């Protein structure tokens, strides 16, 4: 076992994932660097089309043509997943690395009982009897707050409500005590009270088992409450990354600041919200230089010329020619 503080569980460098089209290859992920330590929750925040989900899927190489990972290294516990064999990845997925999706029906098979699919997830990766597997599945269900788990194991996905299904998906992801969980908008479709319950379970899991979590979401507020560090994505790039307190209390990138300021919690009721004008560029028509430039209130002439390189600042990093400094009010 290595020291988690100095040796990250997952380290991604220069990840680039493109989608091939008739008129060329468009980069959904344009050079992403990130790392996650054991037991750490990293929130990956972005709007639709920012490349956050493609990043998550790229980490376990779940990218089908016309998509292709064309550059970068994905080092997981010292092993490069980009060059690993398909067979090796298959044995890692669902065992050391688990995924949770926005729609739990994507993970759950509608024609198998919950018990069958949960025990299958165990038997696929471990030598044990079916009864032992079912017992463990029942334990996992009660851990995520599902009552009478033995009876629930005999039921089918359609017999569960949306929140319950997502809990089953999380319990299934946790079965083999994975090192890393990649969660793609797992609470976006759920009500706030159910979202609170799920966040509670995930937080407990990370604390108690040392599982690292990549939490992909569009909601900065959820990240603030859940994560240790946050990465903000825009147009395929991580434009700002760092500890949650630092980034959310004093963002350097104007986009992060804009997202935080546009929340209704930032102005008095009835006042106009601080909106970010314009829309995010489409993948095939990103502007030259910094992709946020056309919407940016702080844009300089240089922003049209060069895409800013990451600036390191202790534990933080951001990509901006004219960053917001601490104490400066937008």
């Amino acid at each position, binding site marked *: 076992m290595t020291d988690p503080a100095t040796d990250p569980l997952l380290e991604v460098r220069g990840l680039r994932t493109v989608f091939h089209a008739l008129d060329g290859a468009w980069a959904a992920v344009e050079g992403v660097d990130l790392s996650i330590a054991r037991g750490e929750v990293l929130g990956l925040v972005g*709007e*639709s089309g920012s490349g956050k989900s493609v990043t998550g899927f790229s980490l376990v190489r779940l990218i089908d043509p016309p998509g292709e990972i064309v550059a970068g290294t994905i080092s997981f516990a010292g092993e490069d997943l980009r060059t690993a064999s398909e067979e090796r990845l298959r044995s890692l997925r669902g065992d050391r690395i688990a995924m949770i999706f926005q729609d739990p029906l994507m993970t759950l098979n509608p024609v198998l009982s919950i018990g069958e699919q949960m025990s299958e997830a165990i038997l696929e990766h471990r030598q044990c009897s079916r009864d032992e597997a079912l017992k463990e599945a029942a334990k996992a269900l009660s851990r995520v*707050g599902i009552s009478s788990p033995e009876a629930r194991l005999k039921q089918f996905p359609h017999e569960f*409500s*949306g*929140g*319950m299904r997502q809990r089953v998906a999380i319990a299934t992801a946790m079965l083999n005590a994975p090192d890393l969980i990649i969660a793609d908008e797992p609470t976006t479709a759920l*009500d*706030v*009270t*159910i*979202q*609170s*319950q799920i*966040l*509670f379970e995930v*937080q407990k899991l990370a604390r108690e088992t040392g599982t690292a979590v990549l939490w992909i979401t*569009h*909601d*900065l*507020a*959820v*990240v*603030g*409450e*859940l994560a*240790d560090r946050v990465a903000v994505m825009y147009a395929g790039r991580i434009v700002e990354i760092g500890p*949650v*307190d630092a980034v*959310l209390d004093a963002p350097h990138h104007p986009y992060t600041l*804009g*997202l*935080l300021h*546009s*929340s*209704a*919690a930032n*102005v008095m*009721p*009835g006042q*106009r*919200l*601080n*909106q*970010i*004008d314009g*829309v*995010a560029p489409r993948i095939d028509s990103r502007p030259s230089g910094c992709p946020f430039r056309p919407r940016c209130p702080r844009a300089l002439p240089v922003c049209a010329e060069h895409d800013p390189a990451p600036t390191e600042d202790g534990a933080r990093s951001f990509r901006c020619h004219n960053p917001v400094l601490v104490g400066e009010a937008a």
Partner: protein
Amino acid sequence: MNASTSVPIIELRGITKHFRRKPTLAERILMATGRGKAPPVLRAVDGVDLSVARGEVLGLVGESGCGKSTLARIVTGILRPTQGEVVYEQRPVAGLRGKERLDFLLKVQMIFQDPYASLDPRMKVSRIVGEALSVHKLLPKAEIDGAVDQALSEVGLDLAYRERYPHQFSGGQRQRIGIARALAVKPDFLVCDEPVSALDVSIQAQVINLFMDVRARHGLTYLFVSHDLGLVRHISDRVAIMYLGRIVEIGAAASIFAEPAHPYSAALIAAIPSAKRRKRAFEPLKGELPSPLAPPPGCPFHPRCPQAMSVCREIRPALAEISPGRSAACHLHTAPEAA
């Protein structure tokens, strides 16, 4: 805005909406032989009284399945209530005929949640926005183009877009088209059903600002339905909180958010995520919304309520005024001595 002193633009009196599945063939045969039971009734809305004063924004919040969208559809006349009446400007809507009914339908417009499903993909923007004007002959043909242009510029859409189709627009722009369509017929009252929940965060603020601008310009009244309590607090004068087909608390937005009276309101407000709160130790509300096909006896919230008492399991609390302009349906507030 004080609802009790001003004239309501819309009043709901004892609105109930039941949905019942059609019995299957097998069920019909069993019923005919006296052995089967009719399919259960789903009480989507169960006895709601509500009034919206002219010029105010009433926020309607609750979790999915609580009946808020059904209620919104009843207000606009898309659905007919099973029981109770909708009163528009002091006149029951059910009794309106001809020109008066058309007037109600045009003055009360709806903005839908899904900007992808609510625009006809085969119509150009100019036709979508101008359709009601030409169908109901509200304007002479020659003036419709100008009215469409005015509605489009009002919502911040470039007039060059008028001959485009919905698929050529982003979600935020489509929602603007939906708002332009509603504004084209000069409504008094907009029923907005989750109007920004399908939009990206940075676009939500743009559309919310548009709603606030439009309201200020035309003195509109809104029924703003949403599950996003942060937005509702921001935009609403008053808030009604629904649970399982009923209103459990209603009152001024500022006072409800500052001091919720109903334990369910308190739980909802506590569950709003906030970027200012870090590494929270979550203490979530237990359980989920019960099935409206089989609501629990007594107070429908009692199985999840941290403050449930024995009376809550037996008697359903009525919505009662607890302070001026503020009502709650909870035994904690109705008869503390008796409990």
